[in-house]
């Protein structure tokens, strides 16, 4: 009986000793995922610069805000795209564009125009990766004369990890998929 009592005391001791650690999160940034929270399109042409931003400030879930792109007909714009993670722990991790540039052979942007302006607006990717395949960080947007109206510009960033990049097909790993409203005046 003495032995079982001492065993019991030992068990109870172990139980209480190992029970003291706290589970309270001590790091306010703990577990922040690597996200893209903001996509900025910059279009320069016809003597003006147009920007449009898609912003999801708290990450996945609620409250994505997408600005309308307003273009003039008959103008060809030179475009660029920038991606940001405004929730990143470290400032250098905020700019995701740089990482896409580093790994341009594993990424490709796809720009697709929809709506009534579909036939009047042409997006052409102008940059290439080391294998001569399009990337899409740089592109042009040509708006035909007289093609006014409204539509959408869908921007998809495909990540090529499993299947190889071939310049035409999307991958099964989509990093961004945003649709901007588009107005051509």
């Amino acid at each position, binding site marked *: *009986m003495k*032995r*079982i009592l001492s*065993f*019991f005391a*030992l*068990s*109870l001791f*172990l*139980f209480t000793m*190992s*029970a003291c*650690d706290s*589970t*309270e*999160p001590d*790091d*306010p*940034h*703990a*577990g*922040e*995922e*690597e*996200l*893209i*929270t*903001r*996509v900025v399109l910059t279009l320069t042409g016809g003597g003006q610069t147009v920007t449009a931003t*898609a912003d*999801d400030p*708290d*990450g*996945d*879930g*609620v409250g*994505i805000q997408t600005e309308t792109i307003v273009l003039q007909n008959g103008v060809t714009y030179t475009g660029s795209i920038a991606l940001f993670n405004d*929730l990143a722990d*470290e400032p*250098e*991790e905020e700019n*995701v564009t740089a*990482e896409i540039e580093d790994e341009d052979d*594993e990424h490709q942007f796809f720009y697709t125009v929809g709506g009534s302006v579909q036939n009047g607006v042409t997006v052409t990717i102008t940059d290439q990766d080391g294998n001569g395949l399009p990337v899409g960080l740089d592109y042009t947007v040509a708006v035909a004369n007289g093609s006014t109206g409204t539509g959408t510009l869908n921007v*998809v960033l*495909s*990540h090529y*990890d*499993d*299947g*190889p990049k071939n310049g035409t097909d*999307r*991958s*099964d*790993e*989509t*990093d*961004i*998929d*945003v649709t901007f409203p588009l107005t051509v005046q």
Partner: protein
Amino acid sequence: MQAHIKGSSVRNGAMWLLVLLGFWRPTAAQHITGEVRVAEGGVLPGVNVVVPGLERGAVTDADGRYLLERLPLGAHTVAFRFIGYVTETRTVVVQADTTVTLDITLQPATLQTDEVVITGAGGHTAMLNRATLSVSTLEARDLDALRGQTLGETLEQLPGVTTLSTGPSIAKPVIRGLHSQRLVVLNAGVPQEGQQWGGEHAPEIDPFAPARIEVVKGAAGVEYGVGAIGGAIRVEPRELPTQAGLGGRLMLNGFSNSRQGAGSVLLEGGSRQVPGFGWRVQGTARKAGDAHTRDYVIGNSAFEEFDANIAAGYHTERFGVDAYYSHFGTELGLYRGAHIGNVDDLLRAIERGEPLVDYDFSFTIDPPKQTIAHDLITLRSHYDFATRDRLELQFGYQRNKRQEFDAHRRFGEPDEDPAFALTLTTQTLEAKLRMAPRGHFFGVAGVSGMNQANRNTESGYLIPNFRALTGGTFARGTWISGPWTAEAGARVDWRWLEAFPRENLSRGDFVRRTHNYASFSGVIGGIWRFASAWSVAANLGSAWRPPGVNELYNFGVHHGTAQFETGDPRLGGERSLNADVTLRHATNRATLETSVYNNHIDGFIYLFPTQEEVVTIRGSFPAFQYQQNDVVLRGLDGSASYRLTSWFTAGLRGSVVRATNLDIDTPLIFMPADRATVSGQVAFPDWGRLHLAALEVEGVFIRKQTRVPTGVDYAEPPDGYALLNLSYHAELHLDNLPLTFSLGVQNLLNTRYRDYLSRFRYFIDDPGRNVVLRLQVPFGTVAR
């Protein structure tokens, strides 16, 4: 043995061929016989005399005599079991052409009686009186035939048990349609606590360690506490040696499909200087490459596993203490093509129906992958009072460390920086008082406590940090008289939960939230042996579980399914009321065990699709919210075997589950399809050194699951399928070394199929043909 090795290789080859085919010269057989008496005087009929290692058995006749016929050579452990008496085990060495006499006197049971009823034992009487609830067991011999597979795949041999698989390396047991947090897994007596909320999180148990596995189907809350809504799985390691000696066994497996090699070495012994002291060490390694379907390689499905366990125990007449430590460590790759971005990606992958890339076979494990380390320490002790009542104490400590690595990682190495990492630490403490039989009655009462803490490491965030304190107390009694057994029990548990989710579940500051849950479990049941070889058991049980932390606080996209899942902090607990009737039959020729059940669950927590999609910068995702409804799961499962002739045995097992959401009158999603397995086994007579040779053919038939809710799943359930399996196994006796081997082919016809409960069925087929070789060599002599 040396003589054989030195012989000419041609003659050796011919002998091996003959040996393998089972045609070698016959020799005379050897037997064990004896008489079982009781301490009070007189003989005892109806005692189960079993050789657990061989899964052979006999029952004593009216004169208390038994005969175990035609045993293989070597040392055998013989167990004598009878309700109301202490189980006795003896080890005897059987030499060629002899009959060993082994008489035994059984002592009235103090305490183990209860275990005999709850824990199924070999032999007919034990089977008929097994439990009021439906219970299926895998004994050492069954397990040896399945070594090297995951726990889930092993349990799939039992009626009513299916698996939820995520590729070839992850298989989760599903009992009568329920899994994960609705089952309790007991490993060496302690509830296994991993991150069981995840459908792709398999139980962390070394497949070579268990000597016995028991599956309890239906609500078993009184015995197993919070969570045993759908049942419990008891995994028991080998018993420690109690007599002096040194021995062990070597187990080796090869699997052709993934070129998997697996091996385990076990050493155990008892001490001459310190009688009652026994010890054991075991080490296991498994390594597999990518698995193949009929048509292609499943890219990145390789895995490796290293496990070890150490046990030591000291037993005197009235006191015993056992310590057990086990480590489970695995790294497993997940099929790359299942790593998708958003729902459009998923639909494109389903449309394509096969991998985008023609993968090359490899042993390399790349991200996406999981690494899991599970460490478990248990200390168990008991003390018998002069009244023969027994006090049992048990302490458990376990730490589960899970890391999941994404396919790629910005600003980091995907191989080194996990997408998330969780450490779950659990301490359990339990005290039980087992009452010795008084008249027709015996019982058990106890208290238990659990302290659990979950921490996210700095990277990744999936479910919040939390702490849970759980306490419970229970009592159960059993009354046995003649052909009647009755039992009743009750239990009360409470849980206090402190979680640290982000405010409004979304991003924001961490906030502290607390929850309190308390409820009871109950059971009443009975067994009636209405004829000598027949019994019927009925059980009405109720169990509950509080909502899991994932169900309360999940917020985000579930990878692989492209579902945006949102928890609900207001969820209450689940309660099941399970009614189960089991018919059992056992003779030397035939066995039958079949059950019907009705498991009604109030407040069943599940993911319900909401109308609106969640739009993110990565695209849109269908949204699912955890909610509660009343559901019912009804079904039938069972198994039967019949020995048609001395050399041919036919077997049948099957299960049917019907699950309905009563509130919205629709079927529940992801329920196992109807299935039946038909088998035939041809036993060969002993020839020379070859014993217990048998050839088994098995047909597995799975129907298409047609009872699914509409408009929720992305793809229609896959078609039904049929698989053909074949295996040959035998024991080869090389002097005193009984070597067990088996050669089997799973999916012999290389059938192309997808199972409804395979989480990768959207992307790829299930694995094709698999040739499996198993060898097992015991060495030394150890008594138990």
